[in-house]
């Protein structure tokens, strides 16, 4: 399947899951699904991926389903009692979810630990972690940054979903934009900025960073749009929280069909 089609297919599944569950956290999954495609679909066996912004679990579940890690039959159980697919990833359910997340600021220290383990074992595995920009407010981000730089973890690749919105405001207006590239450069990271919805550009950026064995941990600061793909959701804080009604759902699916499956679009 071509990545451009996969961007549409997974969005369709995300919308289905949230509509059936009558649940929110749609905008944050649509914001990062392309980042996940660029990492997940192009990582090697032995590499690890942590979704630190656990509230985008539906994006993770859809790509795991597409990869065969979650059976089709499990997908409708999302949000239902007795499910293995709660709103934030659960511990010890799937090998490809090494850590349950949900409380922000945990993924980067965990990924740094995984990278440190690979360094000691002298293997070539890459430790990936996907964070939200609001999440970088957490102090653990900066503890882990110092640790990663001091330990020369150039096998650590952080991807920041920089959609500019956090729980209750714009990231630059709440306590300041802690995902700003100059901060990460000052910390000692190897920093690249990319369009977070352009799979080709993301993969090329990732590959370029990983060829640089310079002792610097890597970060892709990906400019994204919360709710990407659905006109009425884009850049709207509301779609961190709201479920869709029937009319909104049908419009959303229609827009995805038009934007991602029509020839010569995007």
């Amino acid at each position: 399947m071509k990545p451009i089609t996969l961007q549409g297919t997974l969005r369709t599944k995300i919308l289905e899951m949230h509509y059936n569950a009558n649940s929110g956290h749609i905008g944050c999954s649509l914001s990062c699904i392309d980042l996940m495609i660029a990492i997940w679909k192009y990582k090697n066996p032995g590499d690890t991926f942590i979704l630190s912004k656990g509230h985008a679990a539906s994006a993770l579940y859809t790509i795991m389903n597409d990869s065969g890690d979650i059976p089709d039959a499990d997908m409708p159980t999302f949000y239902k009692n007795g499910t293995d697919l709660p709103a934030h990833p659960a511990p010890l359910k799937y090998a490809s979810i090494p850590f349950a997340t949900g409380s922000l600021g945990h993924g980067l220290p965990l990924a740094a630990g995984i990278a440190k383990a690979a360094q000691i074992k002298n293997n070539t595995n890459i430790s990936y972690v996907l964070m939200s920009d609001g999440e970088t407010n957490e102090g653990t981000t900066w503890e882990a940054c110092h640790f990663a730089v001091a330990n020369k973890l150039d096998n650590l690749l952080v991807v920041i979903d920089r959609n500019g919105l956090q729980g209750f405001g714009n990231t630059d207006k709440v306590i300041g934009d802690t995902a700003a590239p100059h901060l990460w450069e000052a910390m000692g990271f190897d920093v690249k900025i990319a369009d977070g919805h352009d799979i080709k550009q993301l993969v090329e950026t990732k590959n370029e960073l990983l060829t640089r064995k310079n002792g610097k941990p890597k970060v892709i600061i990906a400019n994204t749009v919360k709710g990407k793909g659905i006109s009425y959701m884009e850049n709207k804080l509301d779609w961190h929280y709201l479920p869709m009604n029937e009319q909104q759902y049908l419009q959303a699916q229609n827009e995805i069909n038009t934007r991602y499956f029509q020839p010569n679009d995007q």
Partner: protein
Amino acid sequence: MRKHFSGYIENNLANRDDLIFITGDLGYAALENLQAKMGPRFINAGVAEQNMVGVAAGMASQGFSVICYSIAPFVVYRCLEQMRNDVCFHNLPVYIVGNGGGYGYGIMGSSHHAIEDIAVLSGLPDIACYVPAFIDDMNTCMTDMFARRGPAYLRLGLGKPMPAAFTPTPWGAMKIAAGNKLTVIAQGPVANNATEALSKNPHNESISFFTINKMPLTTLPAEIATSIAETGNVLTIEEHISIGGLGSTVALLASEAALPIKKFISLHAEGYPGKKYGSQAYHQQLSGLDEANISHVINSYF
């Protein structure tokens, strides 16, 4: 206990390729040899305990067993969510080692004390909290802990040898009295105050004494249950608050086992009465955990 701990690691575990030692920037005049011996597997994570425990969980997920060492309160409270979400939810072999449990850091003040640590940690899933009372007990605890493929906490304090009258057990130590009238159960090095009090007490031969080295306690050891059934009199002693510690656990288990209790006294850390600060012995005295008060309380049973 700190020296015994580092010596144990140096002599028994430092060469284990799957063992990582992370310190939160502590260990001056104690861990230098271990650092030299372990090389890259000895990591100073700096003054950043949350990251230290997160990193430890990440490394443990890749097959390592990881010790995180610091002063007890710093490695228990600041990084509690990392211990819960990252370590315990995933049942990973990360061993938190806290030096100076209870009022161990004395005049350093309340920031350096850990008198709620067992309450805080022992309810987390799959964790074992070790609180050795005597130096002799430490090897039992450490052997058990390092054989675990799951989370643990080791609380270190002042180390004294176990009195000759005691018999070591897997769960601590015991001294069974023939004419049994009182069951004393203690936890951690404050047990030494009790053994001193007991050795001088005229009722010594009528008192059975036990220490418990591992929490959470889910069932009473048979010897303790028998002793409580015989005496109906229980005294628990711990350098920890009354909530979520030894006394409350023993009371619950004895009640569930329908053991008849005539008199139950819990001696425990009372916090900071009068908001005054001093040595470990000073704080023990304010909480009634000193030898003289323990003697006084023991005598109240006779």
